[in-house]
């Protein structure tokens, strides 16, 4: 980066901090801030100069009765050339430092650790290199189910991103970078955290009803803790019952609970509490019959892969298809989990919530 701009920005880090709220979380982010501050001082210079002249002349040459205007040249080629060419040189330089900084931002180190990111309405699905999804969640600005995405300190991390449905954008303000996610191609984004800490992740491309809740926490932790955590999740995932595995899938990999409540509360999609095994009317006039386990298992499976096939009355066809996202084994687990949430679940299966167990009728 341009050393002059960097020095200038460091001298006035108080102002930089005031403007950005918090200092950039990486060297590249602080480079970006110093470029911004360079443009800021450039702009401030012209703003004060031009507005100063304007206010001074407006006061000095305010209209007075009987006082005529003074004759001045109507144009001045040298002056006009100067104020065309001089700012142009600065603009060229501005492009150059912006381009330099950008190229550093987008070219990931070859040793970066790859993390898969899938955006869909309205959640982030993270898959680490060993195949696990981070199971922890926290509350961000009214969204109680924002995932916590762990990254290691001091190691470059590259996100390989795509979308399941509409456009999204992956923005981590503390790292001063964002990249759109598109449904038909990969895009990528890399960062390297310097110190442990939490950083907000926001969706920055409008994606529908709950766009404002499509957030997450990027949590940087020491690299050895990070490795141990990923290994622990990997080991845990082998020892789960189908219901436990299903619960973990709908919370992390699927993110289903962004729209489907587990408590009976209304949501964008139907609640799963006491859904399985009950009669459900569809928008085409037919119903999913009560107490028909095969019909219900198939309905759930189909609604994950191709949600628009059967739409429950009173709901809009807005769900993203999850075809190809889950393996057959995972689909089984999710069906088992949803079944376990119903008081019509067959005897011997323990409901996941505390509703009373009922024998099969």
């Amino acid at each position, binding site marked *: 980066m341009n050393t002059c701009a960097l020095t200038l920005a460091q001298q006035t880090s108080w102002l930089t901090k005031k403007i950005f709220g918090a200092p950039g979380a990486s060297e590249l982010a602080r480079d970006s801030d110093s470029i911004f501050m360079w443009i800021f001082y*450039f702009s401030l210079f012209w703003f004060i100069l031009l507005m100063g002249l304007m206010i001074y002349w407006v006061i000095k040459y305010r209209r007075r009765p009987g006082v005529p205007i003074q004759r001045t040249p109507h144009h001045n080629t040298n002056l006009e050339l100067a104020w065309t060419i001089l700012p142009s040189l600065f603009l060229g330089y501005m492009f150059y430092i912006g381009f330099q900084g950008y190229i550093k931002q987008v070219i990931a180190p070859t040793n970066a650790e790859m993390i898969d990111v899938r955006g869909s309405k309205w959640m982030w699905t993270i898959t680490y290199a060993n195949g696990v999804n981070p199971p922890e969640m926290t509350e961000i600005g009214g969204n109680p189910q924002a995932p916590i995405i762990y990254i290691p300190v001091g190691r470059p991390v590259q996100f390989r991103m795509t979308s399941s449905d509409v456009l999204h954008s992956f923005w981590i303000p503390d790292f001063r970078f964002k990249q759109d996610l598109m449904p038909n191609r990969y895009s990528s984004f890399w960062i390297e955290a310097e110190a442990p800490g939490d950083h907000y992740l926001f969706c920055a491309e409008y994606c529908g009803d709950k766009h404002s809740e499509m957030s997450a926490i990027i949590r940087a932790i020491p690299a050895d803790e990070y490795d141990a955590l990923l290994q622990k999740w990997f080991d845990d995932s082998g020892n789960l019952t189908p219901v436990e595995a299903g619960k973990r899938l709908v919370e992390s990999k699927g993110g289903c609970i962004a729209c489907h409540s587990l408590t009976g509360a209304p*949501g964008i999609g139907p609640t799963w509490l006491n859904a399985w095994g009950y009669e459900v009317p569809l928008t085409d006039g037919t119903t999913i019959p009560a107490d028909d386990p095969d019909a219900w298992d198939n309905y759930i499976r189909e609604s994950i892969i191709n949600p628009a096939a059967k739409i429950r009355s009173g709901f809009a066809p807005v769900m993203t298809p999850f075809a190809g996202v889950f393996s057959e084994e995972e689909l089984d687990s999710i069906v088992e989990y949803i079944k376990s949430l119903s008081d019509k679940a067959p005897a011997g299966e323990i409901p996941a919530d505390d509703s009373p167990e009922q024998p099969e009728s």
Partner: protein
Amino acid sequence: MTTTTITDSGHDSHHDEGSYLTPHKGGAFATIIQWATTIDHKKIGMMYLFTVLGMFMLGGVAALLIRAELWEPTRILADGTITGQLFQSDSTSGYLTYNRLFTMHGAVMVFLVIVPGAPATLGNFLLPLMLGAKDVAFPRLNLLSWYIYVLGAAFAVMSLINTGADTGWTFYTPYSSSHAGNTYGNIVMMTTAAFILGFSSILTGLNFIVTIHKLRCPGMGWFDMPLFVWAMYATSIIQVLATPVIGITLLLLIFERVFHVGIFDPALGGDPILFQHFFWFYSHPVVYVMILPGMGIATELIAVHCRKPVFGYRAIAFASLGIAAVAFLVWGHHMFASMGELANAVFSALTFFVAIPTAVKVFNWIATLYKGSIALNTPMLYALSFLFLFLIGGLTGLPLATLATDMHLHDSYFVVAHFHYVMMGGTIIAFVGGVHHWWPKMTGKMYTEWVGIVGCLLVFIGFNVTFFTQFFLGLQGMPRRYASYIDEFQLLHQISTVGAFTLGLGFFIQLGNFIHSLIAGKKAPPNPWGGLSLEWYIESPPSEHNFHAEPILTHGPYDYEDVYPPHCDPADFPLPEPKPEGNAAH
């Protein structure tokens, strides 16, 4: 230039024939028919003015509702109660109401207010007057364009009544083509509205180009035209060349949504980035359709109220054309977060080129103030506000054109603040200033000066409080189009909301001032400001056929050093010493 005046012989004897505003002798109904079938550019301009102002109020109310919702972030408490939500959306629809509101605000303000605003209202009214013509080149086409505008507005309002679209005014695919909306038809209706409005825009542009080429009065060369006309010329070129692209794009979007033809949706084999290229290939040039008329108005206001020849006339005229040309090459800067590195670098470099002619104009405006005679009345205060706000809008465009900083600021509140400084601080402020400046000419009535000044100051302060705050919101990480937000942003959002209501109050006062002027305003003289362009030679309001005889131009529009303004007391507008012989200043 000599100091002779324009020939408009004996108009005083024609006062008895009435103005274009004189009602039809057959009564109210006949007057309505007369207006509805008029081909008079002045009447059409006034009809545009009132429809555009109506739409401006609709979009403005939506803006205030948006700001009211953002006063407090929405929280869903553990017991299920929702706090901080103005619009009690049912929980099955998330923030649908808010999303529809910002879509409506954006679509109405862009397609129904700012794009047609200055050209169709002031442009229609003033272009023939400034050129010394009886009317525009195609008066019937002009009336048709107003009816098309009304039809487009009707579609937009129908879409709103039919619950409204929730795509944002940009209609990005695949959300708009496959996912958005609980009602099937509302997005199709909104895009149809924009499609129809495009025709209105094209017809107006075509009409103005031909009018400027063919109907300049005798003696008026290209460089004797007021710079507002130059701005209109550049605007019209963009309208004619760019608008067909949005028409085709929106038609393709409707095809994909209704017939499932795969163009933009990957699920059908299309590509969403294609839509962005199409959309911004129109919508970026249209940014200059919005701002060029504002620049033109500001130029007139500054020249008349400083009584100074515009500094660097040709530079401003060619800067308008330069902006129109470069406008077509920079659309990619709206897509830095979704394109590749090479395309980003090319579009970033090209974007800086558009800054140059814009900067040149600002320098020229400020230089025009030098040694003038500056009247601080309402139109001039608006012009000075324009300079202040547009300069901030332009300078804050620099970090958005710079790649390294845009990757942070893209799609954040910084962008929201930037384009409001340009579109509203630039275009709308200049437009409202222009309406004040030409209001006596259009209506034949004066407004109350001190009320105008109070309104202008409230608008200026309210605007800055609203939008300057938003630069900080964006820098600190607030994304666009969020109905709710994290607690850290609440204070800045509340300051912004207070500003928005101050701004609203300012406009409300202006509106009251105009209504009062129509009802009880003093009669306006033909030339209240001492202007020199041709519209100030005729009565206020003008007669049906503008000029009583074909005017012959004998001086330039800004020869304030040598020509006494018409219909004014020369003592009020003293001239400087005659220039020494042989010293060619022009």
